[in-house]
C-alpha cells in the first residue's frame, strides 16, 4: 500500500472501516449524547433546505425550476457532500498535525496517514450530516415530473457516487496544499463548503460567466448540475454538448488522480524537509 492510497484502494477500506468502527463504539458508551449530537447535526445541515422551502413559499418556480426540482438538486448535492465530508472531512486538520508533530507519529505506523487523519474522531455526529440528503432523496424523486426511464433511475446513484468522488478529491487536493502552506485550512473550507452551497441551487440562478467558470475551473458543476439536467430532461443554459451530462464519473476520475498525486508529492516533500 502506497503512502497516499486513498480510502477505496484495497486494504485501505478494511482498515478505514475498523478504525471508524472503533471510534463509533467508543462514542456509543454515551448513547443519549451520541443520539442528540447526531440529531443536532442533522437539524443544522437541514437549515439550507428550510431556506429553499421559504423561497418557494413566495414563488412556484425559481429560475424556471419547480420546488421538487430544486430539492432534487439540493438532495443530491447535500448527500454527495455529506458522504465525502463524513469520509474525509477531517483531512483539513493536516496542517495542525504538521505543526504539533503528530504527523510523525502517524508516519511510523503501517497505515496511510490520510486514513489515520480521516478516521480521527469518527463520531456519530458526522453521520447526522447524512440524514437530510437521504430524507430528501427518499421523498422528492416520486414527486418530480420526470420521465423515469431505467437510464434516469440509474443516473441518480451514479450522480451521487460521482459527486462523492469529486468532493472527496477536492478535500484531499486542498488538504494537500497544507503540506506547502500549513495555515491553509481556510482554503480547504472555502472550496468545499462553498462548492456545497453552490450546487444546492440551479445553475440559472447564477450569472452565465460565473457558471462557465465554475464548470471548467473547479469541476463542481459535474457534482450534480450536468447529470441532473439529464434526469430532469432540461436544456443546458450554456448549450453545452449533451455528452457532458454523462461525464461526471470521468470528471471524478480526472480530479481524484491529481488529488492522490498532490497528496503523495506533499508527503514526499514533508519527508525531505521535515516541515
Amino acid at each position, binding site marked *: 500500500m502506497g503512502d497516499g492510497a486513498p480510502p477505496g484502494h484495497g486494504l485501505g477500506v478494511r*482498515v478505514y472501516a475498523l*478504525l471508524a468502527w472503533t471510534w463509533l463504539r*467508543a462514542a456509543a458508551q454515551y448513547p443519549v449524547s451520541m443520539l442528540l449530537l447526531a440529531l443536532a447535526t442533522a437539524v443544522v445541515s437541514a437549515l439550507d433546505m428550510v431556506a429553499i422551502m421559504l423561497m418557494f413559499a413566495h414563488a412556484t418556480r425559481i429560475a424556471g425550476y419547480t420546488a421538487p426540482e430544486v430539492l432534487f438538486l439540493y438532495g443530491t448535492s447535500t448527500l454527495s457532500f455529506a458522504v465525502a465530508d463524513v469520509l474525509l472531512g477531517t483531512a483539513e486538520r493536516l496542517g495542525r498535525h504538521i505543526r504539533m508533530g503528530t504527523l510523525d507519529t502517524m508516519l511510523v505506523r503501517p497505515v496511510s496517514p490520510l486514513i489515520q487523519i480521516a478516521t480521527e474522531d469518527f463520531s456519530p455526529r458526522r453521520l447526522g450530516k447524512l440524514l437530510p440528503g437521504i430524507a430528501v432523496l427518499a421523498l422528492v424523486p416520486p414527486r418530480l415530473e420526470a420521465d423515469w426511464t431505467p437510464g434516469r433511475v440509474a443516473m441518480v446513484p451514479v450522480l451521487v457516487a460521482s459527486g462523492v468522488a469529486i468532493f472527496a478529491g477536492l478535500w484531499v487536493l486542498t488538504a494537500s496544499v497544507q503540506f506547502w502552506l500549513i495555515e491553509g485550512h481556510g482554503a480547504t473550507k472555502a472550496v468545499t463548503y462553498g462548492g456545497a452551497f453552490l450546487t444546492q441551487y440551479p445553475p440559472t440562478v447564477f450569472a452565465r460567466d460565473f457558471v462557465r467558470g465554475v464548470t471548467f475551473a473547479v469541476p463542481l458543476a459535474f457534482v450534480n448540475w450536468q447529470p441532473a439536467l439529464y434526469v430532469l430532461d432540461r436544456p443546458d443554459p450554456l448549450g453545452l454538448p449533451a455528452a457532458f451530462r454523462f461525464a461526471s464519473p470521468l470528471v471524478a476520475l480526472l480530479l481524484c488522480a491529481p488529488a492522490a498525486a498532490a497528496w503523495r508529492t506533499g508527503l514526499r516533500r514533508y*519527508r525531505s*524537509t*521535515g516541515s
Partner: protein
Amino acid sequence: MIEVEGVTKSFTVRRRTGRFRWSRTRVRAVDGVSFRVEPGEFVGYLGPNGAGKSTTIKMLTGILSPSSGTVRVCGLDPSRQRTALARRLGVVFGQRTTLWWDLPLRDSLTLVRHLYRVEAAAFRSRLAELSALLELEPFLDTPVRQLSLGQRMRGDLAAALLHDPRLLVLDEPTIGLDVVSKATVRAFLERLNTERGTTVLLTTHDLGDIERLCRRVMIVDRGRLAYDGGLAGLRDAVGADRQLVVDLARPAPPIALPGVQAVRVDGPRQWLRLPREANAAAVVAAVAERFEVVDIALRETDIEELVTRLYGRARDDRAAGR
C-alpha cells in the same frame, strides 16, 4: 538490525535579512554518521539539543529521507519501505503521545491493534502481558487526556509493543517523569531487552537512563558521532581523572605529591586530582604519612561531567579543523 552508512541530512533554512530579502543557508543536521546496531543490543544515543539526535531517529523510522548515505533497518530501506518497516518497529516519542487524547486507553490500544492488524487472540494475550508488566489495569478505561505523564508513557510503551516488534526506538522516553515512573519504565525496558531479546535504541538527556540501561553509548554532537562504545571506555576516551577527597584534622596548605595535586581547598577539606594510571592506595598512604587524616573518599568523575567534556572537545576539534 540497524546499519547506517555515511548518512547526511541537510535542511535549507531561510533567514530574513532585509524587508524583502531572504538568505538561504544549507544546515547539516546530521553530517556523515555511520554505525551498526546488532540484534539484542541496548544502545543509548546521547547529545545536546540540536545535535541531530531526533533527525537521526526520524531517518531510522522512515519519517525523513536522508540527503545522502544509506540506512537499513531490519533489512529494509526506511524511506522507501516505510510501511513494511513500521510493522517490525516500535516507536515511542517522549514529547508527544501516539495515543488519542479523547479515547480511553483501552480504545486507543484497540485502534493500534487495527493499525497493525494484530489478531484478536494475540491482542488479548499481549495486552494482558503488557498490562501486568506496566501495571496498566487501574487506568485502562481512563481517557488518555486524564492520565498522568507516567501513566501515559506506560500506555505509549504498550501501544508501541502490541505488535511485538524486534526493534524498539525511543525518543526521550523518561523526559519529565518522576523518580518512581522513571524506575518503572527503566525496569520494563531492561526486562524487554534481556528476556525478550528486543533490540532497544533510546535517545535521552537523562544520564541515569544511560548508566542504568545502556551497554553501549553513542554520543552525537553537531551532527557527528563524537563517541561510540561502552560506558567504561567513555572514561578512558575522555581521559577522565579520579578525585581523592581528603578531610584533614586541621586546615593545611594545598597538598602536592609527585603526579598528584590539590585542585581545590576548602578549609580542612582538599580535592586531589588523580591521573587514571595512578595507584590510589599508594597516594592515600603517602597523604596519611604526611598529614593527620580524618576521612578519605575516592570519586569517579560522574558521567555528566564526562559528557560535558566530550561535547567541549568535539567543538575544539572542529574549531582546530581536525
